[in-house]
């Protein structure tokens, strides 16, 4: 794993000696491939120049020595729970993936970091750690996958107490599966892809697949009210969780039954879900879905109509590209692509597929085939790596999202994009910014809109500050236009 960027250390975008964009490693379908359109897109969209490259500074010696609470450490030793105060362990857990966090790391700036890391192995370990922390006046910050984008892992610089990072990575087991009730008892530290893999081995899945599922943990999903790409079939995390056990400084909270619904309110889960990492370790049970038909009924398609997506065509295979651009007359620069995943029992999938294709045809769209769909789906995992490439070339950016009633979707897209462009101009950004959006989730009463915003910061003295001002303005615009502050971006820490 990278300590100052997204994902696996072996996977990254780079420009090779021939100046072609390449994605390294072997993990993804895109790995080892040359991406022909990327260089032009970077240069054209941001005015980025391959000659102007930033150099990340590596400097672990800048880490402050740990501030230990001796009494706490002594008692912790007696419990046998493993811990560490090595500099790299602490730095690794001192940040999530907010732009300002990564930017500072690349700049070699390391602020306040945890003084110590502990690795509980089970629920009871967590109970003990929390007790000791209360007794000795020590701060705890829970750490799961480290993919937070809401500053939840940031250590407050003014904190004078010893800060301990509680890493849940060792609590990664499925304790039991209850086939009668289609539930499972899972520890909070399990990472999304492991959970899916292990369940699949038993013939089940949860269907919860956020973009970050390779790295984010179950506890993080709960703490941030996460939403996954397949939520239309399986639901969001709040629909999946039946039971939560939470350790708090005042004791353990859990419901006394595992019934699927109760009328007595307010639902204690609502205080826990989305509480953004303020609470400690979480253990839970999930609905399972029949996994039988899963593999054979996965069908993808691309719906195309007027809109925008320029890189897409570079991924199309030759004949298809010719068919779409020449024969059907789509302009590759004004092309709208939808990646749709159909999943479930065969009849259901076929029925859904037909419905969607009929709608597409009505508006002049066409299906681009399963292969392209698979690529599109895979792209959502790889896209997070793009930010690191941008940062190599003076481009910073981030995504943010909202949920909004249907009748306001187009208005909010237009206004927020326009606001970003205007604010960048006002704040002295020298190059036109990238300001784009897509609908990523649909509900009966509205949709989730996902914005990408990035710009070339050459010539700015404090790019992160400018970035934050513009993002703040964009959020104001979202609120003024009837959008919510966020749809799912608590990010996924724990």
């Amino acid at each position: 794993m990278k300590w100052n960027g997204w994902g696996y250390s072996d996977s990254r975008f780079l420009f090779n000696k021939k100046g072609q964009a390449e994605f390294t490693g072997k993990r993804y379908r895109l790995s080892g491939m040359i991406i022909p359109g990327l260089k032009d897109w970077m240069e054209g969209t941001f005015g980025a120049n391959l000659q102007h490259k930033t150099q990340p500074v590596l400097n672990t010696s800048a880490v402050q020595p740990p501030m230990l609470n001796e009494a706490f450490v002594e008692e912790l030793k007696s419990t046998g729970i493993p811990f560490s105060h090595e500099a790299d362990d602490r730095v690794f857990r001192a940040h999530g993936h907010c732009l300002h966090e990564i930017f500072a790391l690349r700049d070699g700036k390391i602020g306040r970091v945890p003084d110590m890391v502990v690795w509980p192995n089970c629920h009871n370990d967590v109970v003990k750690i929390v007790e000791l922390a209360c007794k000795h006046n020590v701060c705890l910050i829970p750490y799961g996958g480290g993919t937070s984008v809401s500053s939840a892992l940031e250590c407050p610089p003014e904190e004078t107490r010893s800060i301990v990072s509680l890493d849940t990575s060792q609590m990664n087991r499925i304790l039991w599966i209850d086939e009668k009730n289609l539930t499972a008892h899972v520890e909070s530290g399990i990472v999304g892809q492991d959970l899916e893999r292990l369940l699949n081995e038993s013939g089940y899945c949860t269907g919860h697949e956020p973009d970050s599922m390779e790295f984010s943990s179950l506890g993080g999903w709960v703490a941030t009210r996460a939403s996954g790409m397949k939520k239309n079939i399986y639901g969001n995390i709040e629909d999946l969780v039946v039971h939560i056990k939470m350790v708090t400084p005042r004791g353990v909270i859990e419901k006394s039954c595992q019934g699927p619904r109760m009328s007595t309110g307010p639902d204690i889960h609502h205080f826990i879900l989305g509480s953004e990492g303020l609470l400690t370790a979480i253990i839970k049970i999930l609905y399972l879905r029949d996994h039988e038909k899963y593999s054979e009924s996965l069908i993808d398609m691309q719906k195309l109509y007027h809109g925008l997506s320029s890189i897409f065509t570079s991924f199309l295979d030759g004949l298809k590209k010719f068919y779409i651009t020449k024969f059907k007359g789509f302009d590759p620069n004004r092309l709208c692509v939808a990646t749709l995943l159909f999943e479930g029992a065969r009849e259901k999938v076929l029925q859904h597929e037909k419905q969607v294709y009929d709608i597409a045809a009505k508006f002049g769209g066409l299906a681009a085939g399963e292969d392209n769909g698979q690529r599109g789906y895979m792209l959502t995992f790889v896209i997070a790596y793009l930010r690191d490439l941008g940062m190599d070339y003076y481009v910073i950016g981030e995504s943010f999202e909202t949920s909004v009633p249907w009748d306001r979707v187009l208005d909010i897209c237009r206004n927020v994009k326009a606001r970003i462009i205007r604010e960048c101009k006002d704040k002295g950004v020298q190059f036109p910014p990238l300001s784009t959006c897509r609908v990523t989730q649909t509900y009966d009463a509205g949709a989730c809109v996902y914005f990408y915003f990035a710009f070339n910061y050459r010539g700015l003295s404090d790019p992160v500050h400018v970035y934050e001002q513009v993002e703040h303005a964009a959020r104001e615009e979202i609120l003024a236009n009837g959008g919510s502050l966020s749809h799912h971006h608590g990010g996924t820490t724990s």
Partner: protein
Amino acid sequence: FSNKVKFSLDPMLKKRDDFEDILEERRNTSDLRYALRCYTPALYKGLTPCTASELKTMVLQSDQLLYVINQVSKETGTATDEIQSEAEAILEEMAHRLQLSTIRFFAFTLSKIFKTLFRSICVNEEGIQRLQQTIQEQPVVLLPSHRSYMDFLLMSYILYTYDLALPVIAAGMDFMGMKIVGEMLRMSGAFFIRRSFGGDKLYWTVFSEYVKIMLKNGFAPVEFFLEGTRSRTAKSLTPKLGLLNIVMDPFLKGEVFDISLVPVSISYERILEEALYARELLGVPKPKESTSGLFKARKILSENYGSIHVYFGQPVSARSLAEGRVDRSQFNLTPRHIPRKPSEGIQDFVNDSAFRLVRSQEENMVLKPWVLLAALLLQNQTAGNKLGVLVEDLTEQAVWLRDLSRQFGAFLHWPDHIPPSRVVSSSLSLHRSLVRVSEGRVQLNLEPELLSKAVVVLSCASYRNQVLHVFIRAALLASAIHSVAGSRKQEIFNAFSFLRNMFSNEFILRPGAEVQDFEEACYLLVKSAVLQVHQQEVLVTDRGHRTLAFLTSILDPFVQGYQMVCRFLCEEATESLTEKQFVPAVRKFFIKHLLTGELKYVEVLSSDLQKNALAALLRLGAVQKLRGGANEGTLKVNTVMVNSLEDTLGGKQDFLFLIKNFK
């Protein structure tokens, strides 16, 4: 350029563009070729043009209209298709049918007419460039000042000349009476709205949807007159808010990113309707707009009306007006197609914006030297100077006033390269119908008979009025200083607030900006070395008296007029006096007192002043209008209060007394 609204305190810093005469080219090249030339305006980004019938369909199928049709159907029990066809009929009556051929026809004929009537039509080209840019980026609302029938044809003529998108113009229904002309105007982009449609929900919805759809989609710039009607006095009128509310709505509801509001100031050196307005103000009824009437106006063609200046102001972004003032999320909680009365906060915001826009219209009005001369001649005349003023003296005064108004930031077009005496004499000769010069002395061209005298005085006042916005705040302060015995700042401020409140139907004074206006007045008078303003005190300098005297006397006719209206209400108003009878009765009363010499300002005969005074008294609660039954429209006078207001205006009573008693 910056989209931010800036109202700089220092008027000297105001930077204005240069003008270019568009008639010059018309005099040198063929009008026919000009009328037939290729016209390819820049359009709103990504616009797909839309035909008039497509537009109508969009209006008739809009969610808002369908909702209201259903609502009305439920309320009245009428079938929806019946209401639907009623809506269609309304739209038919309203909609414009903009045609390029008609525009070309006007381009040709107006070129001919303009060349005979006017010496020049000057336009600020930078303003045009700004507009051209803005039209491509945002939906645009054009807000010209309204002084003449000419205004909207002139606007379209200019936009055609510069190859800019032609506007659609909100026009009063009275034009439709002029058969052929009405249709011609419709084909040149006018759409017609009824003067009043009070509670007619259906009409309002068709109308507002029609305007909003044109604006939102950027089909054409929407043009209307904030003042609602032509100002007969050349003073800006209190803005009407209906249409401004409508055009702000798409922005407030997030249906567009922003709306650009472009104030346009049209100043005529001589207004075509000059004498017509004066007669109208004196109670000679307004001739109904008719085609034959327009042709009778042909004799106008033989006269010289000087030049016209058209200044396209800095586009004002609705977004920046609303920034920090309006919480747009209030519109998120109801579906946007359900009509809702704007909240109080929104109403205040729109009202405040309207005042700002009218004020920026005022500020960019070009003032000719004659405007200053008219002010001076009127003051001389009421001072009782029977022989008139020596030309040299008038020139000296005019130069003094020129310098003063420049210090106050007036947009004065005084040709500095010509000797002042020549400037004065050429102004006098252009307006020879109003002044006479004999044996080196100048005076107003007054006849002994009162009403003919009043026509000349009111015509003259309509020129003086053009400069009032420059001096109004300082004049209120000067009058306040004059009426307060001491020099205590607080007392002077109280007096200032009283006068400002009293005259806020008469002049453009933004509601709630009294402290700002007071500070602005102080600033200007300190800068021109008239006052010294200390923490507690306001002192007049030795040099300051001339300026203060001028400023007080510029406001004096209004003070006296309002006082006399109060007197009339106390002394003569009967129990059964109605609003309708008010103006004729006041006029009679005034004529009586003018003939006895008790009243010295003939210009108080202006019905505009009388109506404004009544509106102020109604607003202050000194007079009440009864509603309903046989007493509908009857005015009920609170004699004690009116009396007290009169005394306060006359300086016979302390302002504090009044403030205490009537707050």
